[in-house]
């Protein structure tokens, strides 16, 4: 398949299948997890044709990374759940496996412990049949989608980093790289501290609620 043919194929897939499916996927995930506490947002998106083409022709050690991009790139549909704290993220990861069928589960962390950068929990999951319908051409329906679960700080850092620093054509100076790593370290630290605070304060709140609650009366929440 020539690059032009691939681009045309993906554009057709994007408009006929991925855009409506992303919308349905978002609603489907919201239906399952929307009522859980400490979820900031749930979103889903269709990978844009530009980003897909950019990824499809990516090189790895001088050779094309993908031999069959339309079947190998698994984040044509991507979803994200942003949770408040680290423990919420981990609890959600367990729930994801209850409702979706995974073929991959990864905890993304920097390569070595002395580095700071992108962190998150990633899944590759079967696209749920609940969001499919006859009006979407079968040949354009991807088998899988990618789900990321992040904390608020991981999400915030990832978005800013993607906007400013994550550009394959851009060489960051040493100082800029240190600044990017510094913000990642701060996000990592903030997650850690908030997790500790959540453990202390939410547990305290829970105890108070249990002690002051009476049958038929709402608990007292501080």
């Amino acid at each position, binding site marked *: 398949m020539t690059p032009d043919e691939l681009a045309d194929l993906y554009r057709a897939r994007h408009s006929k299948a991925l855009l409506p499916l992303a919308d349905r996927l978002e609603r489907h995930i919201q239906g399952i997890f929307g009522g859980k506490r400490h979820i900031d947002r749930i979103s889903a998106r269709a990978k844009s044709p530009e980003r897909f083409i950019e990824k499809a022709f990516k090189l790895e050690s001088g050779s094309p990374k993908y031999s069959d991009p339309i079947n190998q790139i698994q984040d044509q549909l991507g979803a994200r759940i942003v949770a408040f704290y680290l423990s919420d993220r981990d609890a959600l990861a367990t729930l994801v*496996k*209850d*409702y979706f*069928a*995974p*073929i991959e*589960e990864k905890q993304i962390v920097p390569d070595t412990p002395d580095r700071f950068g992108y962190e998150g929990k990633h899944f590759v999951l079967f696209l749920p049949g*609940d969001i*499919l319908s006859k009006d979407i051409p079968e040949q354009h329906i991807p088998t899988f989608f990618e789900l990321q679960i992040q904390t608020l700080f991981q999400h915030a850092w990832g978005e800013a980093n993607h906007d400013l620093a994550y550009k394959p054509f851009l060489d960051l100076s040493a100082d800029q790289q240190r600044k990017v790593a510094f913000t990642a370290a701060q996000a990592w630290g903030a997650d850690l501290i908030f997790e500790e605070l959540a453990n202390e304060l939410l547990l305290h709140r829970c105890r108070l609620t249990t002690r002051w609650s009476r049958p038929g009366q709402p608990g007292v929440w501080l």
Partner: protein
Amino acid sequence: MQPTTLLSYLVHPHKSLLIPSDSPGASLPLSGTLFGMLNVVFDKSDNECDIPVRFVMSPEGEQSNVARDLVLAFIDGPTLKTGRSLANRLRDCTTLKSGLGLLFLMLASQDGKTKLVISRFPAEEGILAEEAKTILKVEFIERIFMKNAASYKAALYQGSSPDSDFWAGFVIDRQLNRSSDQIANYWISDFLASDFKTTSKAGTRRLAIALREATQTAPLPAKQEIVAAIALAKGMSGKSLSMVSFLQQLSLSDEAQAAIIARVPNPDLIGDTFILDQEEFLQNAPLAMVELDTGGIMLAPSDRFSDTFERELLDSKSDRYRFTTEGRVVDERLRGRRP
């Protein structure tokens, strides 16, 4: 599409035994009576294999699965050697209870599409009578296959891309609904390292929401049946079922069934098998029930219980209430036998 590769292996039970032996296997002719029989199995698999399954990821969370790797290796190079790896895996999962089996690997490729059917037939017993000129020789035989399809198992995989396809397929397991989960797990979980494509909670949630929504949209007589179905679902907890089998087991009227199926987001999913999860069911289709010390029982979907039954406190000391409701009687029956 007709099979272009037909291999067969005699698979002995070897689970927990120390020295397993390889089955030599045989390549079968692509014509003749046996081919005709197997071609029917191959052809029918499109309809017969109706339980969606998927290979599970590795315990480390990676995109690899031992059984899928063997399937892909066989599709890539369908030889007696690659087929034997699948036969040996089945052998290592087979207990004495499952017994001797004959494994068939049937593969076809056309226009870039590949179809693989893996089927296992258990050994049956029979009597062979051979008449010579002056004597009749009667012999007991333990290795008769394909006589009875009661315990027949098969798996069907189709696709064109080894990257995105062949992660999911369809199976038939005639023993799946029998009481022993161990037997059912033998084919799907142990041999294919797979699970139902629809998870327990996802399938249960889909069913429960369809039932709950149908209680709001169904015509009045069907509504009562659906409420009763919600109450009865508890008894099916932990069992593998599909939405279709659930509705059939409860003998719901056509009207009630249609109202429930209409609430399923994708009607193609009504045949998907999953294990009913009671907790998930109750979360999505809760029923509220109040039983009085007089023996009276009131039952309604929990989100509409207070609209249906008006509650009035008569005496707080003795905790006495009066419930009132109003409506047209759509069904009235006596359950159980009179003494």
